[in-house]
């Protein structure tokens, strides 16, 4: 069964914002897009950079180190130099809390 972890309050983020979290020891970047929440593993698939330090625009987060783009909703690579997907985690909202599942 999926284990959900409490991550943040729903009002902790505005649209197009990102925050870095540590959930059960796993680094997670939590994003808000058009009112919905998305979570990615908080490590670029190209190098040692935190996506939560990145820049959010047009549904993508831009890595702070080399400007590669990752799709916030899927973790898919969207521009050079990133070629490998970033793991994305399921997210749900329960009341005024955002929860994240790490397994899968």
């Amino acid at each position, binding site marked *: 069964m999926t284990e959900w972890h409490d991550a943040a309050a729903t009002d902790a983020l505005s649209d197009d914002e990102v925050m870095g979290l540590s959930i059960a020891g796993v680094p997670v970047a939590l994003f808000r897009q058009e009112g919905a929440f998305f979570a990615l593993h908080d490590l670029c698939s190209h190098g040692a950079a935190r996506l939560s*330090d*990145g*820049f959010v*625009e047009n549904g993508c987060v*831009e890595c*702070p*180190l*080399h*400007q590669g783009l990752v799709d916030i909703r899927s973790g898919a690579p969207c521009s*050079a*130099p990133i070629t490998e997907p970033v793991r994305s985690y399921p997210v749900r909202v329960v009341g005024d809390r955002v929860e994240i599942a790490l397994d899968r």
Partner: protein
Amino acid sequence: MPQGETTYVVVGGGQAAAWIARTLRAEGFAGRLVLIGEEPHWPYERPALSKEFLRGTGSVEAITLLGAAQAGEAGVECWLGQRVTAVDREARVVTTADGRSVAYDTLFLATGGRARRLPGLDSLPAERVHTLRTLTESERLRGALAGAKHLLVLGGGWIGLEVAATARALGVEVTVVEAAPRLCARTMPPVVSDWLHALHESHGVRMVTGVGIADITGTADGVAVALADGGRLEADQLLLGIGIEPEVGLAAAMGLALDDGILVDAQGRTSDPRIFAAGDVARHPSAFARASLRLESWVNAQNQAIAAARAALGGTGVYADIPWFWSDQYGVNVQMLGLPGLGTRAVARGAPEAGSGCWLMLDGSGVVVGAVAVNAARDLRVLRKMLEDGRAPLPDAWADTATPVQRLPSRPNVRAD
């Protein structure tokens, strides 16, 4: 002619070459694709050569951009370890030193640059003298540093400084000699030079600036450098970090238009419309700079190559990035945007000189020409977006760290010529 018979040839086996080949395939080019590179290695990225790789914590695999498996899968014929010695533009044939040849429909020149050397170096013991451009040179330097006590770096530019930082991390004593009065003087404003100077001294590097070299000689166990001011330095290893020369020999012999690099338009096209160039070797028109620029930067090699490959396939997009460059030294991430060296006034946000913040650089008329961020990538990124939109934050507001950069008051940022 059906596209299946079309042949595209890429000369140069570095970062730009790899991105040209990758992009051609990603954008659907179905013809024959030949990449010819002089180095024996599969195309790789160079930044780690002065950082992780030199330190011994990197790997060839981690920096490879187009490896054997990937090239095979994408159908890129790689002729490695082969130097192109001639291109016949009339017959459209490329010939290598080994006498192999291939006819092209479209040709790409991504020949990069070669490390500059000084006359007279050849008389020195070769195992003591280094330049750093290639993977082979980085491996050689790493081997030399393992047994070295004192490294002398000639040239206080980015490569020299990064090697100095890595050598310090390896426990090697380092002296940097720079003939100009300050570090990175070609591209950086004094405030950044001063900060770099202090950063390196705080990590135990001995800095000698504003002093030229009179002579370099070999000693029994190293090299000795006579300084122009009469001083003398001895070290067991010497690194020359005095810049690169764009590798334009081939293009010159082909009769292409040159000006400190191969001249290209905003799509990477040379004076011959069938031939494109990208990366360190190419000089392109920069809308931001309102001048032509030849950049020696990783992101330029990548994005200009992608733009040229797309243009060769009929795309209409242009390469219009604002110049950007980064360096890592002592765990500090420095990012440069625009042309900060043209600035005469620096306004700091945060405390860049203390390890976190960003200098906004303005010219004499108050126009923002660039910025330098120290561990502040996101602020620089937001600033880039503003500059791309033709705006810049008000200098008086820039220091206000309580307000995110995107909410700072801004104004049009237009340079008068």
